[in-house]
Structures are given as structure tokens and as C-alpha cells.
């Protein structure tokens, strides 16, 4: 770290450094792009984990978390602008592919325009939306933006901002679809998009030429809602993001708040949380496999997978009282004591799971049709996975050995022995098989812990009123889809100044266009299914 400070400081004297959780660099916009290029090329920070829009009251800006894909080292860069009327920042889309979609999100919420981003349209909100909702001075009066029943205009062009030699910025029109393109609209109401995702697809015969992604059909503004609530009140929202990883998501938020307050979680709660996380992961992979196979026409698989899923839901329900939105993790530990039959139930599950996985492989994985439809379809290379920030099973299927449970261990994970599943092919089959093998690993983790749940408290003593000190924290966990992050910026009050949920599915959606180009339109379903995105997690 000191090395970075020395070398960067020499070349960019205007950069200021601070050491928090990670090394923090504050850079003026003028040298932001050059700094990013240097960090990328020379220090190997080739993975943009998060790009978070911010409104600090006076200034608007972004906070970036950059990760070295080999050493898993993380640094934080802060860029801001004082101009609230016409805020411009430089884009890093040419360095990090995922920045394209992240910057569009920031533009949509804060109105910051990025110079050099090829596509500066709104992402989540209607294109006739008035104002930028995440700004602190946004007018929330419902009369400004009433519920409109007329359809918005779909545009075939977009705008990009270009800076010429003498520093003047001007807008340029860019064409997304030419008039002669044959564009098929898929979604938002389509059974195979796994939710309300809209893809405008240009095809030539059966081949996909380009996909234009439309998000926001389930954008609920959770992050903005959190700014008006206390910390314990915000936890239940994340259950409703990626509802198949509900417990893992809330684990993340709780850990982030605990880290900020310096609360030590009792060992019993730590182990319970990890067991719950792994049950949740199996649940998530089962449903992913089931619905994906149904999309390919193998309806039987859905029923088989859901059979085991119901067993898991039974276990979770007996302890938490709910089937899907659990509200089980609280700041400091977990809400209730385990059900008296928890251990026996889990052991019964561990017994049936290996047989069930064998059965799935027999029904589906070895099937000729499945092989023909999945092998070599939608191949993602390792470099692209890093570039597009594809984590989770989809990223590991390309060979990128990144798992938050290993890279930045949390909870009881340092105590358990498990294998990080990686494959090298990077195609749909690899992604599917990675999930199957991960379920086995999850069983392995649970088996190691289930007999060794320590006795003691299930929740640490926490103050009645939870107040975070001034500062910012970023915590990541590994959900069934990838690295889920929670970012909190606090000004020292009972509610967050900014809370951001950095979802893995958002990046998965961002890679669809890249993955499907040149593939057949029928393979869009295969690719989408194996990426396994959850749309409410994309839109938040």
C-alpha cells in the first residue's frame, strides 16, 4: 500500500491519501482518468467492484472500489465536482467495461454526466422523469412525477458527451439501432427473463446483433428509502432484493453496521449465520437450476428441484417463521433461538442432498439435448469476467478464482474447509455445473458446523438506539449470485446519509449484450438462465 502512495503521489501530486478500512485516494476530476489508467495497468486494479454515486450536500461525486483480481486487494477512490447545475465527470468506460452501466445508474440518480461514456440515457427511470431522485434536494411531491399510464417513447438514439482539445464539452448523438435493423422487443412481461427485464434485441435472421437493456421495471428506490429510516429498519429491505439470498444479504448489512459500531458477534450467532447462509445458497441454486431447466423445456427438473427446496424452506420456517422474507439477522446476532429440531432436520437434508444432486445430473446434465444447448454457448473469458465484474458461480465458471468467503473471510468461514469451485470453459454448461458443485460444497460446510454450534448468546448486547459514528464502511458477502456489497456513509446520526447495495445481478445484466452477440436468439434464454440474475436485485 505504501508503495502505491509513493508512486502515485510522485506522478499525481494533487491526489490526497487517507487510510481507513482501505487506502483512500481523493482525486480531482481532471486527473481521474489518468489515475484510473495507472492503477489499472501498473498496480493490477483491473476489477471495478463498485461505483457509487454520492451527494455530499455541497458536492456531487462518485466513490469507486477497485479490486486487484489476483491479490484481492481493495482501494477506494473518491472523485467529486462542486457544480450542481451541470455536473460533469470523466468516464472510465474504456478501462472497465462494467463502468458503462454503473455510470448510467449514477447519471439516472444524481444527474452527473460522464464525459466519454458512449450511452448517457436514463437507466431505471422513465426518460420523461423530472429531477434526479437521489439528490438531497429532490422534490418528492408526487405531482411532479405522477403515475403515468401512457407508454414512454422508446428511443433509437442516445447521447454521449465529448470533450474537445480546448476543454469544451458538447453532446453528440449516437445511434443504437439503425432504421434498417430488425428489432425484437423481449419483455418486460416474458416468462423466460426471470422477472421484468426488457431486452430490445436486434437480430439478423436468428443471430443476435445487439441487445439494448432496459431496467427499472421493478426499481423500488430502496436505497433512497433507507436514508429516511434507522439502521435496524433498513435490514428487512435487503430480504426483498435478491429474495433467494435473503439471509445472506441481511447478514451483509448487519456485518457492515457491526463493523462500524465495533460490535463483536457471539460465536453461536456467527455459526448460525453461516449455516443459514449455506442453506440459502442451496435454496438459491436449486431454484436457479429448476427454472432454468424449465425454460429449456425440461419441466420435470423444476419439480424435482422444488421438492428439495421445500425441505429447506421447512427448516428455515421452523426457526424463523417465514418462507421467504425472514428478517432473521439483526444487528449483533440473530433474532431467535434455533428450533429444537433444527439439527436433526438439517442432518436429514444433508442425507438427501447428495442423492438429489446425483438425480439431477442423471435427469438433466447428461441429457443430449441439454448438452447441445449448453456446451459452448455464451462463452465468457476470464478477462471479461474481471472486466465486467462477474462474480459468483458465473465468474468462477470462467476460471477467475474469486470467492468473497475466501478472499475476505467473514463470520465462521475461516474455520471451515471448503473448495472454491472453478471451471475453465466459461460457457453455459460450466456455469450450470459450477452451481451443482457449489451445492455439494455448501453441504460440506454445513456438515462441518452442524455438530459444533457453540453454546451461548445468540445476540450481542447492542444499544437501544443505534447510532453510527461519522465515516464510511463497505462490506461484502458471497451470495448465490456473486459478491453482494453494502456501503454505508454516515454523518453520525441514527440513519444513513447514503446506503448503497452493490448487487451482483446488476453486473450480470450488464454483460448480456456482450455475451449474446453472434449467438442464436434461442440461446438468449440459455445464457440468461445460466447467468441467474434476479431482477429486483438488479433494479433495487
Amino acid at each position: 500500500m505504501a508503495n502505491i502512495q509513493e508512486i502515485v503521489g510522485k506522478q499525481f501530486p494533487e491526489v490526497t491519501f487517507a487510510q481507513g478500512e482501505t487506502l483512500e485516494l481523493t482525486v480531482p476530476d481532471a486527473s481521474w482518468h489518468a489515475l484510473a489508467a495507472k492503477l489499472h495497468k501498473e498496480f493490477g486494479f483491473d476489477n471495478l467492484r463498485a461505483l457509487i454515486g454520492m451527494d455530499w450536500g455541497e458536492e456531487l461525486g462518485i466513490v469507486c472500489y477497485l479490486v486487484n483480481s489476483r491479490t484481492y486487494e481493495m482501494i477506494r477512490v473518491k472523485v467529486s465536482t462542486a457544480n450542481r447545475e451541470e455536473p460533469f465527470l470523466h468516464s472510465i468506460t474504456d478501462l472497465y467495461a462494467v463502468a458503462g452501466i454503473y455510470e448510467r445508474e449514477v447519471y439516472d440518480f444524481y444527474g452527473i454526466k460522464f464525459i466519454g461514456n458512449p450511452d448517457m440515457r436514463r437507466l431505471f427511470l422513465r426518460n420523461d422523469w423530472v429531477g434526479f431522485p437521489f439528490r438531497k434536494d429532490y422534490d418528492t411531491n408526487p405531482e411532479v412525477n405522477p403515475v403515468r399510464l401512457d407508454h414512454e417513447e422508446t428511443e433509437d438514439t442516445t447521447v454521449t458527451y465529448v470533450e474537445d482539445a480546448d476543454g469544451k464539452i458538447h453532446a453528440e448523438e449516437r445511434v443504437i439501432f439503425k432504421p434498417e435493423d430488425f428489432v425484437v422487443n423481449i419483455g418486460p412481461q416474458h416468462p423466460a427473463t426471470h422477472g421484468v427485464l426488457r431486452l430490445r434485441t436486434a437480430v439478423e435472421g436468428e443471430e443476435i446483433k445487439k441487445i439494448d437493456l432496459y431496467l427499472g421495471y421493478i426499481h423500488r428506490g430502496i436505497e433512497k428509502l433507507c436514508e429516511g429510516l434507522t439502521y435496524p429498519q433498513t435490514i428487512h429491505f435487503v430480504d426483498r432484493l435478491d429474495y433467494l439470498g435473503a439471509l445472506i444479504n441481511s447478514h451483509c448489512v448487519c456485518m457492515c453496521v457491526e463493523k462500524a459500531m465495533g460490535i463483536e458477534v457471539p460465536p453461536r450467532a456467527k455459526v448460525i449465520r453461516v449455516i443459514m447462509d449455506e442453506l440459502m445458497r442451496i435454496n438459491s441454486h436449486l431454484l436457479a437450476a429448476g427454472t432454468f431447466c424449465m425454460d429449456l423445456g425440461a419441466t420435470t427438473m423444476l419439480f424435482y428441484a422444488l421438492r428439495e427446496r421445500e425441505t429447506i424452506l421447512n427448516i428455515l420456517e421452523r426457526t424463523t417463521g417465514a418462507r421467504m422474507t425472514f428478517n432473521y439477522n439483526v444487528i449483533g446476532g440473530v433474532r431467535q433461538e434455533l428450533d429444537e429440531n433444527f439439527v436433526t432436520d438439517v442432518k436429514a437434508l444433508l442425507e438427501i442432498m447428495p442423492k438429489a444432486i446425483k438425480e439431477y445430473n442423471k435427469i438433466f446434465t447428461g441429457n443430449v439435448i441439454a448438452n447441445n444447448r449448453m456446451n459452448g454457448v455464451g462463452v465468457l473469458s476470464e478477462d471479461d469476467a474481471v472486466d465486467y465484474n462477474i462474480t459468483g458461480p458465473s465468474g468462477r465458471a470462467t476460471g477467475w478464482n474469486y470467492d468473497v468467503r475466501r478472499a475476505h473471510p467473514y463470520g465462521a468461514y475461516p474455520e471451515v474447509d471448503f473448495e472454491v469451485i472453478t471451471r475453465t470453459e466459461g460457457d453455459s454448461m460450466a456455469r450450470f455445473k459450477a452451481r451443482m458443485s457449489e451445492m455439494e460444497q455448501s453441504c460440506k460446510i454445513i456438515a462441518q458446523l452442524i455438530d459444533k454450534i457453540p453454546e451461548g448468546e445468540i445476540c450481542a448486547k447492542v444499544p437501544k438506539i443505534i447510532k453510527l459514528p461519522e465515516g464510511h464502511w463497505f462490506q461484502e458477502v458471497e451470495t448465490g449470485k456473486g459478491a453482494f456489497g453494502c456501503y454505508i456513509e454516515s454523518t453520525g446520526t441514527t440513519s444513513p446519509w447514503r446506503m448503497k447495495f452493490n448487487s451482483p445481478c446488476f453486473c450480470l445484466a450488464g454483460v448480456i449484450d456482450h455475451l449474446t452477440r453472434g449467438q442464436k436468439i434461442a440461446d438468449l434464454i440459455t445464457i440468461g438462465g445460466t447467468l441467474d440474475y434476479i431482477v429486483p436485485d438488479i433494479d433495487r
Partner: protein
Amino acid sequence: MEITTKSMPYEAWKDNEYIESMIAELKANGTNVIVGSLDKLINWGRSNSLWPLTFATSCCGIEFISLGAARYDMARFGWEVARSSPRQADFMMVAGTIVHRMAPVVRRLYDQLAEPKYVIATGSCAISGGPFKNSYHVVKGVGEIIPVDVYCPGCPPRPEAMIYAIMQLSRKVKVEKFFGGVNRKENQKEFLKNHPIESMTD
């Protein structure tokens, strides 16, 4: 007259008052014997084969999948034919949050459903906006944009609750006059008149 569905005793329903008031309305004007018998036959058929539209935006949709799977098995009641096209469906389970961008799409899907059509608002989001009520981008209940027949509370409702909701719907279908438009059609027309789509060109 006791209106119920198969294998559900009349006393087991929690809210028989509303169905009784509907029956009273049905009886008020009297009807022709032939038309009445035809109504009965048609309603019997329709109430036992309600086809849902596969429409889900979030968590409630996953519970709807569970409803279709082996444990809850909605095929027992004749609802398993979930259609992906609104043209072939009888009712719409609005499962999940409806947001501003989605609102026109929901309305269009509703308009595309073939008559007679029904709506079940599933989950607190579809009923009132639920936990996201204060959001700038969430519609405070799908009842603001399309007429709703049955509300099914929960976050998300358990599959059992969904079964109860669809059973309520099938009960409502039974007290409808297919030829006369009593009980439902009038309200629907009125609703659509009060909620016009602005700048509709076609």
C-alpha cells in the same frame, strides 16, 4: 343459497357477508329460467378452470412458482394452466411491486386479457405499496391503475393464502350473470372510465 368451492365447507370461509350481498344483488331483478340455467352452467365451467396469466415482478412470483409445484399443486383446482399470453388467460395474479415504469405495462396487459377478466392483487406491495409505500417510484397499490377483484395480503403471501384467494375469485365468478353483467362488469367499465390513459393515440 350457499356459494362455495369444492371441498370447502361454507362455514370455513372467513367472509361470507360480501358473497351474500352479491347474491342479493343477483336475485334483486330476477331472471329468465333459461338464461338463469345457462348462466349457472357457464359459471360452473368457468369457475372450475380459471387460467392465470404468468405475471410476476418479485418475491410473490416465487411463491406462485411454489404454488404450481408438487407440494401445493394448484392443478388440483384446475388453475395449473398458467398462460404466458394475456389473450389466453382468465385472470391476472399481480404478484409483486408495481412501479411507475411498469404501470403502463400492467395496464396494457390488463387491456389485452380477453373478457371476462379478473385481477387478484397478491402481496402487500400490489395492495398498497407495502414496505415501499414511501418510495418515489412505487405505485401505491395496483388498484390505482386496474380494477381489483380479490386482495391477498402477505409479504409474500403463503401459497395457502394464494389458494384461498383464487378460491374466493372462483366463488365470485359463480355469482356473476354471464349475460346480464351483474356484479362485476358495470364496476369495471366505470373504473376504466375514471382512469383513462392520457395521450392514447391508437
